[in-house]
């Protein structure tokens, strides 16, 4: 059966051109399949010149937030942090694209453009640790994944080689993470910043106690999808032997971006594309097999009598800001939704698809991003290098996860960045005090390079009420659904933020920083704060950011009754529909999710190809 008005048929239609969509398109195309990629955002970025226009937009943006290089597009709007952070408890926030129903602000954004949110991500790529996949079995909380670390290991290897990850095995082999024999990362670890080295030295041998157990605090290098020094020699990657690695440079200008050049702007844009974005994977697609249609918004899936998907509608716009053309239906043997956790959920809900479990849009999670910061006693060279080059990984797992959340700690390289937005406000503050001239220059130079910042990516558990919904009440200017977000945090997560304050105190004390130079309370005006009474009986006024790690909205599981997709990310309800990406995660763990999503998605392409044979 075909839907009316059909003019084109493909082996597969992929919705979204971010890392997931690009990988599916590349893999299916390489296997000789015909693929249509539908991208809602603008058709820009694949040439060096169009990408550089993003850099110029960033330079002249007054508020340099994650989407600032990528001009707002009225035809396919994206959420902005500047909209979201206005939320006040108990009041729906209607500003911008994303509708916030609270009670907490879901303070994360994503980008609808060719390349998706990988244009503005930082590029951090740790693997999940084995216990992240079995939270119920190991700790009696949340749910287990329908696959394990062992099942995913070879796909991690492939994803790391596909995206170009710089890391050292020895630094990453913590908390049960293992590597197959003969494997190594494609590039050596990115050098630790001078600030990292100072912190590593100061905290050597430091341990932290949680619920009666001691955990070591070790500063170690960060795995990053950022070009570094390529490894040479024979390296075994998931069954094939590679002879060294050749870094992938910029899309449309491959000699650019062969190494990270220290632009210190990874979020929101790497000017030379040393950081991975899916533009690189799109550039690897075979154009004879893969049709890319940008400025084409998928609006509805058609479901046939037998439950199979029989078509997808999209609406295009010829210029940004122009209205949408009437829907066009295209058909395929397979349909793959790769449009981001929120947009995937939106499209499924708008189509009444894949939701027999009633889990579509539910279990929305993020890493509440909690900050502490301090003023070191000496110049540690802040404001240089990639956003992070090291982390403290040791509290990502442990027996305490029965009671409270784990976290990944990132050691920031950009001073008090999200805490006080230096250097602009510091300049204004000094000028307001009448400090000018050499005193102004000297005072900035004597303080800002000493700024230390720890960021905590705190775990949260899946909750059915944390969800993305749609409503006829909330439509964008084209009459399409805006995402409506309900979001809250459990005590499990708040308690870990209090732990983060205690831990930070210990780290900063080891660095010899006096209490008056240690901070965790943000200045007023940066979102709402929440009073939390901790286990220690004290009250804490806590405030957090989003990490941009949207997961959980179409979770995978072992049973069709409580999950949306199976372990191959195939819909339980529609045999020819895959819903891929971070939305498939049943739990969030503490790792930045993109690498794991790409590994899962590469694994799913095997099932897709089996089905297309």
């Amino acid at each position: 059966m075909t839907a009316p008005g059909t003019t084109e048929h493909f082996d597969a239609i992929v919705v979204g051109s971010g890392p997931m969509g690009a990988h599916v398109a590349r893999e299916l195309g390489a296997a000789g399949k015909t693929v249509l990629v539908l991208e809602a955002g603008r058709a820009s970025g694949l040439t060096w010149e169009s990408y550089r226009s993003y850099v110029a937009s960033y330079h002249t943006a007054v508020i340099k937030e994650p989407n600032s290089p990528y001009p707002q597009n009225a035809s396919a709007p994206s959420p902005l942090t500047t909209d979201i952070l206005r939320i006040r408890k108990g009041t729906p926030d209607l500003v911008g694209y994303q509708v916030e129903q609270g009670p907490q602000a879901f303070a994360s954004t994503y980008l609808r453009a060719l390349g998706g949110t990988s244009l503005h991500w930082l590029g951090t790529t740790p693997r999940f640790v084995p216990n992240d996949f079995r939270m119920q079995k190991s700790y009696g909380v949340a749910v287990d994944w329908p696959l394990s670390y062992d099942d995913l290991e070879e796909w991690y290897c492939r994803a790391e080689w596909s995206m170009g990850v710089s890391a050292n095995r020895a630094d990453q082999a913590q908390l049960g993470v293992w590597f197959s024999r003969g494997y190594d990362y494609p590039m050596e670890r990115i050098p630790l910043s001078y600030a990292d080295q100072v912190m590593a030295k100061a905290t050597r041998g430091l341990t932290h106690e949680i619920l009666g157990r001691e955990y070591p605090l070790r500063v170690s290098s960060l795995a990053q999808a950022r070009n570094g020094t390529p490894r040479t020699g024979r390296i075994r990657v998931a069954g094939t032997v590679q002879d060294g690695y050749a870094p992938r440079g910029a899309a449309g200008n491959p000699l650019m971006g062969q190494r990270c050049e220290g632009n210190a702007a990874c979020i929101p844009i790497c000017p030379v594309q040393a950081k991975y974005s899916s533009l690189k994977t799109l550039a690897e697609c075979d154009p004879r097999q893969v049709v890319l249609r940008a400025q084409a918004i998928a609006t509805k899936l058609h479901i046939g009598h037998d439950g199979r998907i029989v078509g997808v509608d999209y609406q295009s716009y010829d210029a940004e800001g122009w209205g949408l053309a009437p829907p066009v239906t295209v058909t395929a043997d397979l349909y793959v939704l790769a449009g981001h956790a929120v947009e995937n959920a939106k499209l499924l809900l708008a189509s009444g698809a894949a939701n027999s479990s009633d889990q579509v849009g539910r279990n929305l999670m993020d890493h509440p991003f909690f900050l502490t910061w301090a003023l070191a006693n000496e110049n540690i060279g802040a404001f240089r290098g990639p956003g992070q080059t090291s982390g403290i990984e040791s509290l990502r797992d442990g027996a305490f996860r029965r009671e409270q959340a784990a976290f990944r700690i990132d050691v920031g390289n950009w001073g008090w960045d999200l805490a006080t937005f230096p250097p602009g406000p510091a300049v204004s503050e000094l000028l307001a005090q009448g400090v000018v001239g050499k005193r102004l220059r000297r005072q900035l130079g004597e303080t800002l390079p000493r700024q230390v910042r720890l960021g905590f990516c705190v775990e949260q558990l899946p909750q059915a009420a944390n969800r993305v919904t749609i409503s006829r009440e909330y439509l964008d200017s084209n009459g399409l659904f805006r995402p409506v977000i309900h979001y809250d945090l459990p005590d499990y997560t708040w308690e870990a933020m209090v732990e983060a304050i205690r831990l930070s105190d210990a780290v900063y004390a080891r660095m010899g920083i006096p209490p008056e130079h240690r901070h965790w309370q943000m200045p007023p005006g940066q979102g709402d704060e929440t009073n939390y009474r901790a286990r220690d009986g004290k009250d804490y006024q806590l405030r957090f950011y989003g990490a941009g790690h949207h997961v959980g909205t179409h979770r995978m599981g072992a049973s069709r009754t409580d999950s949306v997709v199976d372990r191959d990310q195939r819909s339980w309800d529609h045999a020819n529909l895959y819903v891929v990406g971070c939305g498939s995660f049943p739990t969030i763990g503490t790792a930045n999710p993109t690498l794991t999503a790409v590994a899962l998605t590469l694994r799913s392409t095997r099932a897709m190809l089996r089905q297309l044979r």
Partner: protein
Amino acid sequence: MPTSDRAHPDGASAQFVALSVALTGFSEAELHGTGMVPTYLGVIPSIVGQRHQDLLLTRWRNLARRAAGDAELLERLVGEELLADPTLGPLAVNLAYLWYMGQWNQLPATWRAVHGAFAGDTTFVISSQAWEEALAYVAIGSHPPAAKQPGFGSWALPPADLEVP
């Protein structure tokens, strides 16, 4: 705006640069080295009119005369007197911020209430080049994000000495 009147110490451009030196703590050579002098010379006139720039430079000449070559005294006079002036202070603050961040900030509501709201007086970054030359990053031993990148691995080295000459 031509920079040729640098040769004439009484020229508007030379006075503008001298005032900028006192505001920013960067030398004349450093400011000229940014390539931004001709652009920044025209910013205040284009936003709130030439008259305000003339008043600012007149006041500057006055302070410079009183300081009589004592750079430290001059800096203090600028910080204490010029910045406290209800009309000229906000313009001087904006000029300093312009050099440090490449950005014009909308003047305070109190200023606009007295002198009028000018159409061009909005908060904006002057240009890509202005961002690339933002001196705040020089002051902190860094570089503007997404510009003047220092190269692979530079961040692992000890930071440079930031002594102000």
